């Protein structure tokens, strides 16, 4: 079997072997501790760097979409070569570190300080349970998916703290708006992955990735996204993830052009950078979870591509999803807050609930005859498509292309 051969290919085991080579000589309680510290350091290092370069890639891609080059002038220090402005994130980092940190006089100093720290801490916590490769999951938990969303849900608290501690009524109002959005989209986000848990029969991320192993006819991977309910769940998950990570078109919490950055109005310097970092970490973590739940985790799409190590597959899928986020940001205008909540409650939540029922139908039909096996595809597709069309009609009723009579 190819799979058996690749399971213990050298490249697959390389990260773990390297770690064991470093910590192997340590006595037992220390070894576990150092291993954990290495995992934490690697996650912070890799995702920190990724965050830095995603900001650059985002600005460059947005620039290209708008027919301009994007930031390309920051030179590498001392050698004075530009390399397409690759050092831009570091220049940004230095800038935000050296900027003045202004705290409003009447602000609640402790909470004002604590809000970005809490937000960042919670978003880093979510990285712990994502399987990055075949043997690379920092913490094996039985209820890993639950843990992930529990840590993610706590970010709302930080948003509230930021808005309230600034002692600025606009900050507070914007924080309430942000909370309304986050709570609204928490529901479809949570409902969209329940089908996966239902089918995989487990809350452990490793087991969910294992449930997506293998290929149908040798080339269609058993990923959840390639089923009717899985595709619908993936789309709902990604839309809710867009809203949860405050990305355009759901970036009303910090709409730069209409609110002055919302609950971040009173933040400056590195605290502001921390908020941004947390936002990107949230985006990365949600993308990682989407990969784990729907896109087969670290598994390769085709059997003959298995020689590429699993962690590279994970990284590739992550970058593809991030590109999707950026692409969407480059395309869609911002939604109004009422449109946004209406979209969540009247469209996504019902659809996610229907998808849950759809999954039950799918799993019930899977145990029957071959004819039923075949029939469940159109049946389940219809179960989710018909409500989609009907709800979509209802949602967009009365919204016609605008006629600009005097323009």
């Amino acid at each position: 079997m190819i799979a058996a051969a690749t399971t213990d290919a050298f490249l697959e085991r390389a990260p773990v072997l390297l770690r064991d080579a470093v910590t192997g000589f340590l006595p037992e309680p220390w070894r576990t501790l150092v291993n954990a510290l290495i995992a934490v350091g690697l996650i912070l290092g890799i995702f920190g760097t990724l965050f830095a370069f995603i900001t650059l890639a985002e600005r460059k891609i947005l620039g290209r979409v708008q027919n301009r080059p994007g930031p390309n002038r920051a030179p590498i220090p001392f050698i004075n070569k530009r390399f397409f402005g690759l050092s831009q994130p570091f220049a940004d980092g230095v800038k935000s570190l050296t900027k003045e940190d202004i705290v409003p006089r009447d602000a609640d100093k402790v909470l004002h300080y604590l809000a970005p720290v809490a937000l960042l801490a919670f978003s880093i916590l979510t990285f712990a349970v994502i399987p990055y490769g075949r043997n690379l999951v920092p913490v094996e938990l039985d209820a890993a998916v639950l843990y992930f969303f529990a840590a993610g849900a706590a970010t709302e608290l930080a948003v509230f703290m930021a808005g309230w501690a600034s002692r600025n009524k606009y900050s507070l109002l914007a924080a309430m708006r942000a909370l309304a959005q986050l709570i609204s989209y928490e529901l479809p986000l949570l409902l969209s992955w329940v089908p996966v848990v239902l089918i995989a029969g487990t809350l452990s991320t490793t087991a969910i990735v294992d449930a997506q192993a293998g290929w149908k006819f040798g080339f269609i991977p058993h990923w959840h996204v390639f089923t009717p309910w899985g595709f619908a769940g993936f789309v709902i998950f990604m839309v809710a993830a867009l809203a949860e990570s405050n990305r355009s078109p759901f970036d009303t919490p910090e709409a730069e052009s209409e609110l002055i950055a919302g609950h971040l109005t009173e933040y400056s310097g590195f605290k502001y950078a921390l908020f941004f970092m947390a936002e990107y970490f949230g985006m990365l973590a949600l993308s990682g979870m989407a990969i784990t739940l729907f896109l087969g985790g670290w598994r390769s799409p085709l059997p003959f591509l298995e020689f590429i190590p699993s962690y590279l597959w994970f990284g590739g899928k992550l970058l593809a999803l991030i590109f999707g986020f950026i692409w969407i940001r480059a395309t869609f205008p911002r939604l109004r807050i009422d449109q946004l909540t209406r979209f969540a409650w009247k469209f996504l939540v019902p659809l996610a609930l229907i998808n849950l029922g759809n999954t039950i139908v799918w799993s019930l039909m899977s145990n029957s005859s071959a004819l039923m096996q075949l029939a469940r595809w159109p049946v389940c597709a219809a179960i989710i498509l018909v409500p989609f069309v009907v709800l979509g009609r209802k949602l967009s009723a009365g919204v016609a292309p605008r006629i600009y009579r005097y323009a």
Partner: protein
Amino acid sequence: MNAVLIVIALVTLGAAAVAMTLRNLIHSALLLIASWAGVAAFYLWAGAEFVAFAEILVYVGAVSMVVLFAVLLTRRSRADLTVTPDSAGRAISGFIAGGAVCGVLVGAIVATPMGVGSSPTPTVTVKQIGVQLMGTHAASLLIVGVLLTVALLGAIVIASADRTDDSEDTP
């Protein structure tokens, strides 16, 4: 291991105690949330992962928002925070209600046989919990759900009562 338990207990109880004494309601609410997180940490210490994460997800994530929204929407002004009760009857009923809850809790704790010694920690998977919840305890789950819904509706009814005074809110 006991040191960890003591730290968790101190944080949980300390946060709860300070929350009761603070005059700033938002600070109290945030400390209450810290106390809930402490409870979750205790569950984690006890090996009940699922309950711990559910606690964080439900209490720290959702109920905290309800509490904070309630505080922000209902508080009228800073001077509104009266410590003295409106009437003696209200104080007495408050004490009776609190005492009843306390009595039930203490009674439950006393009545529970505390297994002292080293019983092996049961390994409970999420699947088993799910089967238990949806099978044997389905009725109690439904009853609790109905109770919470009724409580929520009651809260809405109370909150939507007409305001008598329209003093300006000073945030």
